[in-house]
């Protein structure tokens, strides 16, 4: 056992994990040689496992990623079992995702549900993408590829027997979203007039949805992996739901997710038209820029609400964290300013 493995939280579960993997992979035995913690955000833990499979279809050395809940998981995201089902559905639709391998619902193995997926090479770190122009290959091509990937996600339409947890299909996604964010603000006890102004604008200008699809809900720079050649995987499926596909496009293009390159309107990496072209060609539909502008306002509202929720997680004593407190403190004012810029009085249509 390596020092990293011995010191990791997985050490005490080594034998049980090896037995589970051997059974799941139909191998004679599996040796867990090493583990490395990977960054996984505040909600999940990700571990890179060095495995040796003896016998079976996976025989030999293999690196996989184990994903499970962090100690302080929040209820808003999908469970790991649901995420596993989403990964399978996405892979079946042709989306570039890490191959989902095995799900373990037995708490006796690790003490919590986890799943194992193939390792994908690359990085998702936005600051690296912003700094290193060679990363991700040709950026316009990367944006076109991302547009096509998003269209594949949106090809998954209700009903889906394998995704029963996604629940009711919203009759009017935009209005349902406004209602949900108001409820979130009320639960937080947050009194923000700029956010209320933005929500009312979104209520008044809500576009009709051409057809509800699976929506990723966090499709942005930072949640896809690239290597030197281009895209390697779409990550972070924990917020998927049924919704208006245009909301994902608005989220990807929103100014708040362009990082150091606000002039590059497709996620801070490329021109918007490259992303749109990839999406339109794969989806066989035209994107209405006015509808995307609407969903970009909603994106800023959503991020502001999430930032306040993250701040509340620490202020409520649930999870002491300066990082969470700063998220709730730093982002909302900037987002409020963006929302107001996009919803000035001359951008309100006449009363209906």
């Amino acid at each position, binding site marked *: 056992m390596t020092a990293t493995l011995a010191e990791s939280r997985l050490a005490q579960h080594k034998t049980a994990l090896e037995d589970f993997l051997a059974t799941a992979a139909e191998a004679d035995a599996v040796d867990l040689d090493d583990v490395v913690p990977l960054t996984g955000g505040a909600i999940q833990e990700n571990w890179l496992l060095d495995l040796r499979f003896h016998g079976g279809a996976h025989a030999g050395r293999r690196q996989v990623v184990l994903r499970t809940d962090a100690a302080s998981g929040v209820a808003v995201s999908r469970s790991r079992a649901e995420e596993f089902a989403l990964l399978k559905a996405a892979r079946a639709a042709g989306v570039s995702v890490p191959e989902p391998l095995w799900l373990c619902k037995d708490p006796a193995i690790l003490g919590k549900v986890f799943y194992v997926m193939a390792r994908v090479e690359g990085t998702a770190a936005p600051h690296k993408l912003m700094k290193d122009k060679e990363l991700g290959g040709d950026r316009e091509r990367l944006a076109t590829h991302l547009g096509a990937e998003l269209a594949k996600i949106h090809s998954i339409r209700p009903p889906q027997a394998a995704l029963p947890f996604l629940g009711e299909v919203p009759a009017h996604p935009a209005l349902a979203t406004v209602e949900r964010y108001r409820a979130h603000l009320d639960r937080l006890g947050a009194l923000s007039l700029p956010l*209320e102004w933005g929500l009312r604008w979104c209520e*008044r200008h809500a576009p009709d949805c051409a057809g509800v699809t699976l929506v990723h809900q966090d499709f942005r720079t930072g949640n896809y992996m690239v290597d030197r050649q281009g895209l390697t995987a779409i990550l972070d499926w924990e917020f998927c739901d049924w919704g208006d596909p245009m909301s994902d496009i608005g989220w990807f293009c929103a100014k708040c997710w362009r990082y150091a390159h606000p002039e590059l309107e497709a996620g801070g990496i490329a021109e918007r038209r490259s992303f749109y072209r990839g999406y339109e060609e794969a989806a066989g539909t035209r994107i209405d820029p006015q509808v995307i502008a609407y969903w970009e306002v909603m994106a800023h509202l959503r991020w502001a609400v999430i930032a306040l929720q993250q701040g509340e997680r620490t202020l409520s004593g649930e999870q002491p964290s300066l990082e969470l407190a700063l998220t709730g403190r730093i982002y909302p004012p900037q987002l409020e300013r963006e929302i*107001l810029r996009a919803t000035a009085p001359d951008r309100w249509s006449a009363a209906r």
Partner: protein
Amino acid sequence: MKGGEANAAELLRLVEHELANEVLPQLSGDLRYRARLILNAVKIATAELQADRDLSTAIKDALGPLTASAIDAPDTSGKGAADQVQALQQMLRQGELDADPQLFEALVCIAEARCKLVP
């Protein structure tokens, strides 16, 4: 003359200086990231201590006339600022302030003032 005793705002300013110039350059990796978080928190706290009264006044000035007219009477009821904001929130939700230019200007002023407090 301050009698040699630093107040809270002055202490925070010195912490900010020490962190930025003496501590941060010595750090790398995760520790550097965490030190930057601390520095940002100190900057916000310093700015807020200095501007808190200004911001409260700005909000009151910006929203005061609106809340007075919105609730159809000046604030003589002893209602706090939060109650007045809540009244405006309800009016916004009910569509009574749609595209209201006066409210919009007030919100922009407040948003700008709030943005000045964050790094």
